[in-house]
């Protein structure tokens, strides 16, 4: 069953078109990755799905309901959430307060406590620093906190915007293992990534954007072998293989 259905979505910033007629589907339990060079419109796509930027045309259906006209807080209440680019940890709040902020719309205090303890169990580094300001965390820990914060909203679909950006190779591996683990527990994932190889390796479906349009979509294994994917990053006729 399709959990998220984006159909014909277009977004403009002033007179500049950022997204043009983009469609994609995430089925329940899937990891779908969105690839593309800088400026291809990947972040805009995630923001438009959340409702944080207005769509000029097209619609978003989540869990069978048309949410196109709903503001972000209503969509998040339905189980959609975003781990934003650059993590956007709140540095004037403590680690624990950042986690609680993720659950700010929930009233089931006891379940929130239990789930927070589960997140501390998963990320012992966060548990050790729970009372410290979030600005004290390393980049990798901040990414774990951003994901933990998103989990506190009890999402059905988690959108991650370039989560591996700026992380050490060790943390990148941990991150992708975590994404697999969460997915195995039933979470659906829409993943925007620069690390094409790793993203295609975990994904069940993939879409490639170029200048705000979908240029390729389908099976990640087939896409990984397609020379046009490298062209989307490096420009027409690029022959050199990707660095990794």
């Amino acid at each position, binding site marked *: 069953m399709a959990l998220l259905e984006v159909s014909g979505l277009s977004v403009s910033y002033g007179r500049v078109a950022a997204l043009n007629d983009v469609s994609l589907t995430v089925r329940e339990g899937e990891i779908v990755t969105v690839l593309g060079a800088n400026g291809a419109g990947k972040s805009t796509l995630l923001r438009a799905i959340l409702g944080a930027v207005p769509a000029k045309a097209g619609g978003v259906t989540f869990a069978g309901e048309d949410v196109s006209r709903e503001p*972000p807080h209503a969509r998040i*209440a339905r189980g959609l959430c975003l781990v934003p680019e650059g993590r956007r940890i*709140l540095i004037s709040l403590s680690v624990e307060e950042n986690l609680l902020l993720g659950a700010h719309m929930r009233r089931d205090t006891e379940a929130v406590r239990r789930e927070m303890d589960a997140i501390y169990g998963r990320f012992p580094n966060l548990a050790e620093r729970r009372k410290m300001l979030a600005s004290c965390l390393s980049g990798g820990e901040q990414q774990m906190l951003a994901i933990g914060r998103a989990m506190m909203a009890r999402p059905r679909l988690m959108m991650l915007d370039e989560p591996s950006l700026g992380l050490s190779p060790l943390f990148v591996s941990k991150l992708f293992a975590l994404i697999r683990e969460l997915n195995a527990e039933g979470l659906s994932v829409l993943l925007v990534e620069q690390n094409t190889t790793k993203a295609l390796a975990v994904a069940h479906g993939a879409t490639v954007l170029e200048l705000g349009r979908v240029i390729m979509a389908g099976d990640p294994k087939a896409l990984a072998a397609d020379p046009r994917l490298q062209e989307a990053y490096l420009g027409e006729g690029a022959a050199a293989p990707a660095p990794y």
Partner: protein
Amino acid sequence: MLLQQLVNGLMLGAIYMLVAVAFTIAIGVLNFLNFSLPGLFMLGGMLAFGMMKLGWPWFLAFAGALFVAALVSLIVERFAYRPMQGSDPEVPLVSSLGFLVLLENLMLIRYGSDQQPFPALMPDMNLRIGEVVIGIAQLVSLGISVALVAWLSWFLAATNAGRRIRTVAESRETALLMGIDIRSLVPALFVASALLAALGGILFAVNYQQVSPFMGEGIGFKGVAAMIVGGMGSIWGAVVGGLLIGLAEVLSISMLGADVVNITVYGLLLLILIVRPQGLMGRPATREKL
């Protein structure tokens, strides 16, 4: 005698404190120096006076004055703040200053420009501790102010709504992505700061038994000074700043004479700005607020 002056200074400082906290909420969360707040302070005192003059019991008059102040603050939000979202922060500052002038002149038309005597609510009830005399009304005001600010500080630190407010204070963009409904939060903050300012005005009227259409100006600007002294955007900074300005004012009246009050108060402000530009409890040049 010095002890008596210290007590009086703290009582006055409690009122500055309420105004300073109102300012600090507006600037700390909304980045908006809301100059309608002195007007709302005055509205609290003047309307409580007006309604009691109509024969209303004091508690109804106070509730009515607070209600009207909250309502006016929503109008300020709608017309001075919301349409100016995309512009420089100075633009809503000036339009809110317009509201201050408007409110003052509306009260001027209704009640005239003279000082009006505010009826004594708790006549001749004083506590005597040795040489020091403490009016019950003063003590009650101090208690209410401190309790309210302590509650507010707890609310911001320990509730979901408080965390939402602190998130908006740090980054509106992040708040939006976290599903915080900024459009309903902003009017709520305007109401909260209006209630603090108007309550300050009512307590001022009760303590000093006089009101006038221009009572907000001097106090409003000292409230701003108190906020800056304490550190902009810090609640406890506003508390410290308010009490400090109140003490400085009362002590300089008794020791140096009434003529130099403003020199002392604003001299203190200048001194603190030179020595510690971020204010006593402010954090230097970060995004951290409240």
